[in-house]
């Protein structure tokens, strides 16, 4: 009898420990099947927010629902439009009551592989990023607690949160998790550029390949910041923020990564964005200062502003900087690079039914 009691206590302890470790276990058939090509690295996904069908579906609804904003006028999709590869065709986004922000909306592409978010890197997880716009007075001008209360009262959403996270009493954490799950599955991998991994240079036209060669050699230098992991995915933490000469010493104070780190050496360093779908995501740079890719090419060719933190990839060629104010590309070379950049356009991405507005019939 005593022996059974000991075994019983052991089993009970084990069950309690397991229960404590798992907040909410999704139903076995609720696991989201996240498939990516072999040339993509493994996804960096937090263990406390695994992808589930119910979580992704809920996140998609929240992404497109203006209920997240104070006056129910602004949704995530207001500033992250799928037609623009989840960026925006405006320089600055307009928030509740016509408030205007001061940075250009970043594209949402392949975020599952990234570790820092916003142009200045102030969010260190997608979950943290997801609540940022809700609480920003220039954007949704709400509080995540208010939104949680609204969603808890909603006949539509309460059961969906119960299904996805085990409770109909919604918390900001659950909102962040759901939106992050949807954002994590937004993947671009069907551009012309992706064919390079199968058929190498035969993927490109002669002009595109000429641009590819400029991009991936020291003529253009682009790959040092927008390398395979830049155009494709994410970056190592040590290379994710760069000063590309947009600002003078005076202009860059407190801007970019230094907003977070408070280090003068981080002034003017901004997150290097993915170039996937770059044809669709203009205007360009953190402040949307360039309307077209041609403007961007002109900048890198002859518009670099020298400053104390200017990236080594520019300062290591002082002759070019002095002579041209940048890379000194010819007009033909600029066209070739733009032709290559357009091979990163992925129309299967912008037409993917899984990413569309679920409220549109």
């Amino acid at each position, binding site marked *: 009898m005593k022996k059974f009691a000991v075994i019983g206590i052991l089993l009970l302890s084990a069950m309690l420990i397991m229960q404590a470790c798992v907040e909410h276990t999704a139903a076995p058939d609720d696991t989201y099947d996240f498939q990516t090509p*072999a040339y993509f690295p493994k996804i960096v996904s937090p263990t406390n927010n695994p992808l589930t069908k119910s979580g992704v579906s809920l996140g998609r609804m929240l992404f497109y629902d203006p209920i997240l904003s104070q006056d129910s006028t602004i949704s995530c999709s207001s500033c992250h439009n799928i037609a623009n590869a989840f960026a925006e065709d405006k320089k600055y986004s307009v928030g509740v009551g016509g408030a205007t922000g001061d940075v250009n909306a970043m594209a949402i592409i392949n975020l599952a592989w990234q570790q820092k978010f916003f142009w200045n890197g102030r969010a260190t997880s997608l979950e943290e990023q997801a609540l940022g716009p809700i609480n920003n007075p220039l954007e949704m001008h709400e509080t995540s607690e208010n939104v949680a209360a609204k969603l808890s009262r909603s006949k539509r959403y309460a059961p969906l949160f119960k299904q996805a996270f085990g409770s109909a009493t919604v918390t900001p954490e659950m909102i962040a998790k759901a939106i992050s799950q949807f954002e994590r599955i937004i993947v671009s991998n069907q551009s012309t550029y992706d064919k390079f991994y199968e058929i190498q240079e035969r993927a490109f036209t002669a002009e595109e390949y000429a641009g590819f060669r400029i991009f991936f050699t020291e003529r253009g230098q682009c790959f040092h910041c927008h390398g395979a992991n830049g155009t494709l995915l994410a970056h190592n933490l040590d290379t994710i923020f760069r000063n590309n000469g947009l600002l003078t010493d005076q202009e860059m104070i407190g801007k970019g990564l230094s907003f977070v780190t408070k280090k003068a*050496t981080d002034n003017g360093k901004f997150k290097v964005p993915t170039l996937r779908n770059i044809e669709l995501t203009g205007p360009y740079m953190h402040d949307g200062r360039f309307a077209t890719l041609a403007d961007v090419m002109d900048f890198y060719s002859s518009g670099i502003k020298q400053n104390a933190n200017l990236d080594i990839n520019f300062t290591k060629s002082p002759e070019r900087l002095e002579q041209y104010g940048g890379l000194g590309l010819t007009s033909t070379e600029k066209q070739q690079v733009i032709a290559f950049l357009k091979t990163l356009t992925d129309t299967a991405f912008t037409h993917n039914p899984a990413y569309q507005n679920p409220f549109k019939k």
Partner: protein
Amino acid sequence: MKLQLLFVLLFFSLMGCTWENQDSTGSLKVNFVHTFQDSSLQILESNQLIYTTSTGNKFNIKNLKYYIAKLTLYQNNGAKYDVNMVKLINPMEQNTNYQNYTLSNIPNGKYSKISFVFGVDSARNTFPFGLPNNSENNSMEWPFTLGGGYHFMMMEGVFQNSKNDTVGYAIHLGVTPNQFYNEFPLDLTVNGNDQSLDFQVNIEQWFNGINKINLNDGYGYMMEDQQKQLLFKQNGVSVFTLK
């Protein structure tokens, strides 16, 4: 009674496993200790020029990463042991796992030589599948257009050029001809224990080996310049010293 017997059996089974490991194998943690001459290497974020090459260039180091492959131990009888691994050494990382290469399950015995390949061995120098497909290896890609594979080393910083301007340099080594093999005599006895040894990595030697490097000679663009990469490959042999 049966339950007690079960615990006793379990205890001895676990002890048996431990004793077996202790008897037959040991481990060796090889640390890469970075210096400039004999002082600890400082990697800076600022443009402060704290080092001087033998050719008189004032410079600093802002970024340093490189690969070590196929660290191998040799016994006198010709037997050798390696874990056939490529390790990214990154002295900028606070996590010291990026500054060592550990060999586990080394068969007991006396080892008289240690060797490694600087860079990525040719069998694995193909991007993106040669090494584990993760963001840190992705960040070392050597473009297809320049031969493909991975950077063997990235060392970057700024220096004062001949016009007294502070400008960048980028020592980038890659492609298979620029890997090199290094070997060192060793007196190591493995007897079921965990040991460690240090390689001093004297960064000054990259600039002051058999070739004296003057950064004014154009070390911003060397990925397409085999001659410049060769100078560093030749200097690399004297960078590593077994302590």
